[in-house]
């Protein structure tokens, strides 16, 4: 399932765009503790392709995708 989400992101001085916080649809906000990997990738599960961020959020590793200018996660 493709779940579009709100994201607070930051541009670093080199122009890289990095997600900082993930706003879940029920109002909870999660800090993205660490970004472990960034690469172009497709999501077969959600159906889409773009830049894939492997994020550590509250001890869990989750993929966050940036497709064009929308963020999504591949929900279960």
């Amino acid at each position, binding site marked *: 399932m493709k779940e579009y989400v709100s994201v607070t992101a930051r541009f670093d001085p080199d122009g890289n765009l990095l997600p900082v916080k993930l706003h879940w649809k029920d109002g909870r906000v999660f800090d993205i503790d660490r970004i472990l990997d960034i*690469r*172009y*990738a*497709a*999501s*077969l*599960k*959600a*159906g*889409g*392709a773009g830049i894939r961020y492997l994020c550590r959020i509250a001890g869990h590793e989750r993929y966050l995708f940036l497709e*064009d200018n929308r963020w999504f996660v591949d929900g279960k």
Partner: protein
Amino acid sequence: MRIILHSDCNGFFASVECLYNPEIRHLPVAVCGDVDQRHGIVLAKNEIAKKYKIKTGEAIWQALKKCPDLYVAKPHYDRYIRFSQMATRIYSDYSNLIEPFGLDESWIDITGSVKDFQEATKVANEIRMRVKEELGITVSIGVSFNKIFAKLGSDLKKPDAVSVITPDNFREVVFPLPADCLLGVGNATKRKLKNLGINTIGDIADCPRDILRFNFGKNGDTLYSFANGYDTSTVKPLGYSSLPKSIGNSTTPSRNMENLEDVKIVLTILCDSVCRRAREQNLIAGTVSVNIRDKDLFIINRQAKLNRHTNLNREITAAAMSVFEGNYEWRKAIRSIGVSLSDFRSGGEAEQTSLFTNEEKRQGLYELDCSVDSLKKRFGSYCVRSALMLKDRELSSFSPKEDNIVHPVGYFH
């Protein structure tokens, strides 16, 4: 020796649609034009639909007859363009010589970055894997020493495969294939070759050149050199564009055109679009062609030479209308119509003025067209329109310039 890859996205439009809709991946899928707009033909199909012998270009009803469970998907050109750019981004990690052929195919010349076919095959496989991971669709790649065999190679194994055709193995791999596997051999050529007893690519290669030349003229030489692997055409660098041979637009409006006024509305829009495209490239045209298809799909194509090269809306529209009026007898309503400009010259060159034209007025018309162009560029094609368009909003509600998708042109273009 050169090393060239040809990468072909398998069932491109259908693969992208399947990626975006996980629930249709196990179904036979065909991406089709809009039936209400009367563009209802199959544009692409997935592997499952291929098993039902569904062909690109056939009408939706024909496809549904072969496979009643066919899932008919609408095209999303913005997605295809984005995916095409993403594929090119991957290719550009390996070479700057990347020549696209439509949205879904590209030649990549990697001569400079590998030392032999073994390494080239590795690169081809790497590209194939990366496209699968990064785009979620598959490609077939042909690796060879010229563009023709590279393209042929990408058709050998599908989907998600790499085929290699080297100077050492091309006789075994290419020669037994039917003649129409060769780029440039269509139905008509195939039939003619068959009459000469030529059925395979090997037969073409073995045929004395004079016989081919006698039967096919200049194309006979081309066939001979393609079949023997003598093709030397280069892979153009990314962004390369040559002077176009023609600029054209055509449309099938939502209803048939019944009279001269209908045709005038549609031709005015088409002429505006082709003239804008010519002005953008600073080209002036010497020939206007009009293509008419009546409601029984009978096609006529007529052209006229202009007295003087031009890209003015007013002059081109008048020329197109006079070509139309001089050649159509209105026995039947018209289903679709197209206009194209050719015989180009660069607009900056000095030109012979005419004794009887008001050059100042002509310059004024040119400036008027350019001003309207810049308005349309900023605010869209509908912001300034001829009053004629208000007479029939159904016929006039299209914008060929913005809707124009550049489809692959012929290889010999």
